[in-house]
């Protein structure tokens, strides 16, 4: 909230500088987030427009003769909202406006101008730029405007946390400042109520929602504008001046923090106030001109006939104070927080009043505010405050009492705080010692501090006031048997990330919510969890696959001219199923959120260089990256099997199996999906179930010894039907190795074309044969090769080549 420092100093006359006040408040938890300095130099004075005539040839400029007390000057002005006789601010030549503008003698349209008539915005007073600022007619001509307004002033923007509704006022901040500095408060003047009859009736039909309702009456008021310093004070706090009566309620609100409302008593049917629930569907028009259909949960202030205010949120139009109002019924009430919150939400209203009532107001301050506001109305609008008061307060709240142990304060703050200091700090916040002894004392909490209900709340107050800097720095001891454990899973994860980086993949992070149409483009059967209140439809569905995000990333980069892309994401997807890892009980996860790892590649394998490169990525780049990844994770039982995967091109769609179980899918993007995502058809994708990988990962490998005997190398090439998968041939080769001599098989060539017959292919393997316990003879090697040859021939019809 906005706090005028000048006003604050009236309530707590400290001698600190503005900077020091800001620092003290910030370190006590009332963070000064922003500052505005309001001042107007002596060159801007009140001046009377003597005459106004249009400038020839201009559709808006006027030439005015203006009296600034020292003489009459000619000034050209473009505003339209004034007439001869009005008093307005004039900046004399040589003056500097708060926005830095220097006023000089100048000619506009050939007409000499000796100064400038100013709007509120030009003077830095508000955003109002509708025309000149019009000053009251009785303003002293020639007086510097800054003095007339009560400037200079500094305005703090203070971030008041939701637990401190008591600090949403100048008095509230002044109380803090007083507690921090020991400078006593100066409470403002009030019109205390006496015993007398009041010409109005109040019925509180819902004391639960309205625990207290006070009304006072002021007669003989004359509604008009407030004096300049009052207007300035309101503007400084971001409130638009309206009329003296409304301004008085706002002034009291800003000063004491309690929302007030003034009704035109003559427009209240039956001179009656009834606090009641609205009838379901009942209509009323609020001050903002909107007709509202009320709910039976809304609390209203009604007269004998109809609702006249949405209680604690906004007044109604029918009883609004107008120029002809002479009798005011001033309401100062206390409404229950949750109810106000519901009503404000239901009607989409957030007002100064609802903001405060939602946070909880103070029933005692309500009385003080009524008396203060009555006094202010009489001061600003004349009239007479009737001495009586109507006070419906059937169940006064008892004082909150809290036991506080200084030893507990010390234990929690980690530093010794004496009993004497605890007492001094709590007393400075106007808590009263009621009972007990220095080890344990009972404190009475002032009514405005509804947040202090437990010992811990009081401990926080002591800590806050003495400053958190006084708390020492201590590293907690390691617990017995605790180790700074890095889980093996974390090791595997970093090994995987390193492998992906080595494969040239950049890591991306995407929002968990995606456009539902993106999910459907990949899987028409997708049934994602939907966000009920998304910011845009683009964020409407919880992802069931990482692919939409990655494909959008490719599109984003391609559109910006980056063509070679390899990216991956490791993150959760969200499925509307029970989570098998946390199946039952109250701590069950409401949805299944498995981690997935996805890769996407498009463009060139590597940019063209003088040593080569420039080839487009293909399926085997993707597969190779996965093989590197799986190796880095220590996963050995791996198979790639052709499979049907909806959004993938049938040419290469396949499934990764780890230890015989499906762990993911990979392949080229289906052309239809490529079109949807506006990416090239040569886009390759994989998505893996991270948990399935982790289950088979090996963080550390065992050592198997270095071979003691030499290996024998043999190459074998076969001609086989083109449709036979390489994996099948490898299986047969291994199956032929009954004596386990085959240490390694590498497939080093695949060839189709002459002289290999049509429909066939030549596949070449390099074999490494080794026995653990002896040097292999050529005879043994030859025998194994012959066995392989025979097996491939009988099983696959493969002929040895060459």
């Amino acid at each position, binding site marked *: 909230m906005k706090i005028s420092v000048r006003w604050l100093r009236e309530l707590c006359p400290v001698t600190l500088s503005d900077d020091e006040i800001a620092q003290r408040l910030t370190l006590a938890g009332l963070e000064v987030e922003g500052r505005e300095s309001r001042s107007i130099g002596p060159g801007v004075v009140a001046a009377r427009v003597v005459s106004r005539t249009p400038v020839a040839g201009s559709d808006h400029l006027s030439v005015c003769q203006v009296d600034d007390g020292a003489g009459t000057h000619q000034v050209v002005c473009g505003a339209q909202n004034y007439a001869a006789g009005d008093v307005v601010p004039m900046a004399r030549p040589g003056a500097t406006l708060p926005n830095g503008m220097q006023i000089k003698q100048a000619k506009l349209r050939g007409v000499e101008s000796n100064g400038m008539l100013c709007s509120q915005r030009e003077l830095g007073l508000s955003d109002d730029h509708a025309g000149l600022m019009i000053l009251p007619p009785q303003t002293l001509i020639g007086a510097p405007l800054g003095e007339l307004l009560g400037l200079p002033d500094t305005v703090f923007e203070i971030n008041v946390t939701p637990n401190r509704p008591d600090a949403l006022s100048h008095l509230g901040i002044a109380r803090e400042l007083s507690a921090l500095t020991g400078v006593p408060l100066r409470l403002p003047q009030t019109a205390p109520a006496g015993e007398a009859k009041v010409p109005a009736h109040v019925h509180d039909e819902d004391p639960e929602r309205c625990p207290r309702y006070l009304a006072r009456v002021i007669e003989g008021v004359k509604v008009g504008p407030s004096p300049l310093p009052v207007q300035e004070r309101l503007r400084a706090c971001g409130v638009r001046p309206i009329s003296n009566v409304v301004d008085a309620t706002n002034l009291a609100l800003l000063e004491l923090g309690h929302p007030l409302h003034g009704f035109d008593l003559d427009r209240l049917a039956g001179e009656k106030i009834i606090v009641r629930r609205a009838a379901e569907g009942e209509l009323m028009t609020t001050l903002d001109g909107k007709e509202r259909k009320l709910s039976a949960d809304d609390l209203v202030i009604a007269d004998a006939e109809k609702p006249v205010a949405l209680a604690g949120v906004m007044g109604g139009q029918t009883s609004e104070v107008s120029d002809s109002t002479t009798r005011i019924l001033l309401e100062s009430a206390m409404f229950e927080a949750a109810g106000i919150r519901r009503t404000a939400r239901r009607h989409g209203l957030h007002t100064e009043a609802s903001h405060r009532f939602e946070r909880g107001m103070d029933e005692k301050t309500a009385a003080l505010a009524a008396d203060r506001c009555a006094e202010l109305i009489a001061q600003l609008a004349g009239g007479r405050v009737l001495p009586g008061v109507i006070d419906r307060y059937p169940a006064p709240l008892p004082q909150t009492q809290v036991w506080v142990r200084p030893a507990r304060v010390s234990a929690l703050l980690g530093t010794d705080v004496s009993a004497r200091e605890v007492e001094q700090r709590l007393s400075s916040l106007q808590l009263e010692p009621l009972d007990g002894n220095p080890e344990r004392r009972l404190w009475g909490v002032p009514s405005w501090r509804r947040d202090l209900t437990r010992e811990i709340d009081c401990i926080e107050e002591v800590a806050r006031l003495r400053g958190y800097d006084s708390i020492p720095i201590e590293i907690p001891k390691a617990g017995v048997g605790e180790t700074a454990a890095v889980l093996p899973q974390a090791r595997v994860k970093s090994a995987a990330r390193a492998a992906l980086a080595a494969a040239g993949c950049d890591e991306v*992070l995407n929002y968990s919510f995606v456009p539902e149409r993106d999910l459907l483009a990949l899987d028409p059967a997708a049934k994602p*969890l939907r966000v009920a209140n998304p910011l845009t439809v683009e964020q409407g569905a919880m992802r069931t696959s990482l692919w939409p995000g990655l494909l959008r990333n490719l599109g984003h980069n391609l559109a910006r001219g980056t063509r070679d892309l390899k990216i991956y994401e490791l993150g959760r997807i969200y499925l509307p199923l029970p989570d098998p890892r946390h199946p039952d009980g109250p701590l069950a996860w409401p949805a299944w959120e498995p981690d997935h790892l996805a890769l996407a590649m498009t463009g060139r394998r590597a940019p063209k260089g003088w040593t080569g490169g420039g080839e487009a990525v293909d399926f085997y780049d993707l597969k190779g990256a996965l093989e590197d990844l799986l190796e880095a994770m220590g996963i050995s039982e791996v198979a790639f099997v052709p499979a049907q995967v909806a959004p993938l091109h049938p040419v290469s769609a396949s499934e990764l199996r780890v230890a015989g179980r499906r762990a993911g899918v990979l392949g080229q993007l289906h052309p239809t999906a490529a079109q949807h995502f506006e990416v090239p058809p040569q886009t390759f994708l994989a998505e893996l179930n991270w948990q399935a990988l982790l289950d088979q990962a090996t963080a550390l490998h065992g050592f198997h010894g270095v071979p003691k005997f030499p290996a024998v190398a043999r190459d074998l090439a076969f001609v086989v039907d083109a449709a036979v998968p390489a994996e099948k041939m490898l299986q047969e080769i291994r199956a032929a190795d009954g004596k386990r001599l085959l240490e390694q098989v590498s497939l080093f060539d695949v060839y189709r074309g002459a002289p290999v017959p049509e429909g066939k292919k030549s596949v070449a393997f390099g074999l490494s044969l080794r026995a653990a316990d002896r040097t292999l003879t050529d005879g043994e090697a030859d025998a194994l090769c012959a066995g392989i040859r025979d097996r491939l021939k009988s099983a696959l019809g493969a002929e040895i080549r060459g």
Partner: protein
Amino acid sequence: MPDVIEQIDSLLAAARAELAAAAGEPHVEAARVKYLGKSGSLSSLRKGMGAVPPADRPKLGKLVTDAIAQLEALLEQTRTALGQRALQQDLEREKLDVTLPGRTRRRGHRHPVSRALDDIIEIFARLGFHVADGPEIEWDLYNFEKLGLPRDHPARDMQDTFYLETRLPPPPGSPPTRGAQEQLLLRTHTSPVQARTMLGQPPPVRIIAPGKVYRVDSDVTHTPMFHQVECLHVEKGLSMAHLRGTLDAFAKAFFGPEIKTRLRPSYFPFTEPSAEVDVSHALCGGKGCKICKGTGWLEVLGSGMVNPDVLSGVGYDPEQITGYAFGVGIDRLAMLRHGIDDLRLLFENDVRFLEQL
């Protein structure tokens, strides 16, 4: 006799001159044949020995033999020199342009947020904290109620919540709702992991919970999804001094040893006392600049002592057990660390951005 000596000398001189001018092996061979071949000049001298008086023969013989030896050494020297010259020439010819670019493989890059996350996990592992996990799709009970944020609490405004369309029967202990089913929500902070962890085990608890969180907010300084790490330590005898100690150790490990921390009173429903934590701004050395709004301090996280109501809500005795907790926005930390000035860059995943980090 003097004639012969003269003859030898002149032959040697001639051979030296020829070999000095030899450009390659053929020249050397030609010279060998010419002087030492069967009918070479020096060989002929030996053959003409018959015409020399017998008394002079041994002397002359020796002269010729010496000359032959000299010439043979010279031939060898020349061959070696020529060989070396040829090698030198070959090496010169094969010389590479070392300024041509090397054969590199482009490495991928980590996302700055996931990297910061990993660093944070590692730092806390050293401080004895375990990683705890929780769902992002949550119940009101764990996201709000168990953390001291009942329905209609004004502090719920600080965290505008995304809800899912899905309704399910809520876990026991949930506040009453209309009907038997409750709308699921996207957690607004990592704090529900606090509640879940404490409900699942007795003290001591020493965890961090990293992950994604969601709030209905999108502007220059907010994204609807962001990352947090929650830290919770609950045990006998913990005080605010331990909170400060842990925070200070973390900030120094993450930003650098010269970093200072400052606690400022604040309010969070699930801690009391609560504190905002500022770190001194490394870029300006705490002198104050535009990024830190001239204060020299940057607000990086919210913290506090675990509210006794939260402890008793999970069945712990707040008279016996105390604890501290804090939540860090990782995205902001990553931005500060790398000097990233635009939050939106983090989720655009522009490779030109990623490859700089």
